[in-house]
């Protein structure tokens, strides 16, 4: 028996954003999200925002992020910023070649701590294999219950959200 609890699977096609709602709760502190899919345009970056307990997408400029994008055919890119209204670059890929990424999210439901995110993704912008690894934080002590992925037109996307069970 593993310590992952599958909470929700969200699938969609022909959409410009995907909301995964009502997945973060008091039941777990740490969540793992795995995502696979494809989109319609060339060389696109998928971004993310949290959804709060009122069901609203958080667009306040309270996000910080830092990502290293490792491209097989180009220089590696450091992509970082503070006080932004989104979390950037969950993955970087290209139409027709798909993508995959995994996130770990810490304390999203807690109203007394910030929500932290680790990302690890892989795609192929311009047909060149690319991996990225990043961190992000929402500097709000508010309760988050979901997450939005956006910034591209998805041809298809599958999002699976797991809670990490704690035994003691």
């Amino acid at each position, binding site marked *: 028996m593993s310590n992952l609890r599958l909470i929700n699977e969200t699938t969609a096609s022909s959409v410009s954003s995907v909301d995964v709602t009502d997945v973060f709760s008091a039941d777990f502190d740490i969540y793992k999200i795995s995502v696979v899919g494809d989109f319609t345009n060339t060389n696109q970056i998928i971004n993310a925002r949290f959804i709060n307990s009122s069901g609203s997408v958080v667009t306040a400029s309270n996000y910080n992020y830092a990502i290293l994008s490792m491209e*097989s055919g180009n220089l590696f890119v450091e992509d970082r910023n503070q006080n932004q209204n989104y979390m950037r670059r969950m993955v970087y890929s290209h139409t027709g070649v798909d993508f995959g*990424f995994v996130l770990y999210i810490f304390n999203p439901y807690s109203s007394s701590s910030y929500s932290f995110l680790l990302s690890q993704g892989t795609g192929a912008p311009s047909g060149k294999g690319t991996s990225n690894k990043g961190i992000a934080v929402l500097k709000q002590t508010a309760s988050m219950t979901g997450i939005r992925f956006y910034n591209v037109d998805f041809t298809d996307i599958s999002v699976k959200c797991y809670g990490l069970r704690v*035994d003691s």
Partner: protein
Amino acid sequence: MPYIGTQPNDVKKNTGLYTPSEILQLTKDGSWGGSLELIDSLSWTSTTNNLEFTNLKEDIYDVHIIQVKARPNGPSGSFYYRTSSNGGTSYDSTTGNYQFAVQRCFANGTFDEQKSNNAGVIELYGNAGATVQARSNRTTYMYNAGNPNKYTYFTDHSTCDNNGFNSTFGGGVRSSASVVNAIQFFTNAGGGFANGEAFLYGVKQI
């Protein structure tokens, strides 16, 4: 019914506990057993050149996790993945069918970039030594192996020691769409792996 939510009789928060009746229901639904399935494991104590998983259950899982804890016969080599579309009868080494990009991090202060967009193998690095405590430890995610129309992607993170700690993170892709139904992991350090173990998991779907 993969997840039931807060239980009224839970004595602790954040435990994801189930009642016996819920376990029975989950078992009937095929959802009991957690969200990782151990598909296969390898363990060896004498020199082994190639670690191969030839049963990926790629028709069931679109995301896999591979964990390797292995000690090479010699120091200072690298580590590689290749894929097969014929169940492991042969492994694709066609130049141009793979790409990779990896950041290497050495505790002595050196960080460097390793990459290729025209490779015959996914090279993921990791500078392990041949001493007992200097194994290469790594976790790899693999995406879309079973889809004939999609590339098969890998992300990887490793930690090891060779007279100095080092780690790697990055990934690669088989940029030739095909079903991948077997994978091979190997090293050029000292002619193979002296000992170790490896595990292949499928990330369960509802």
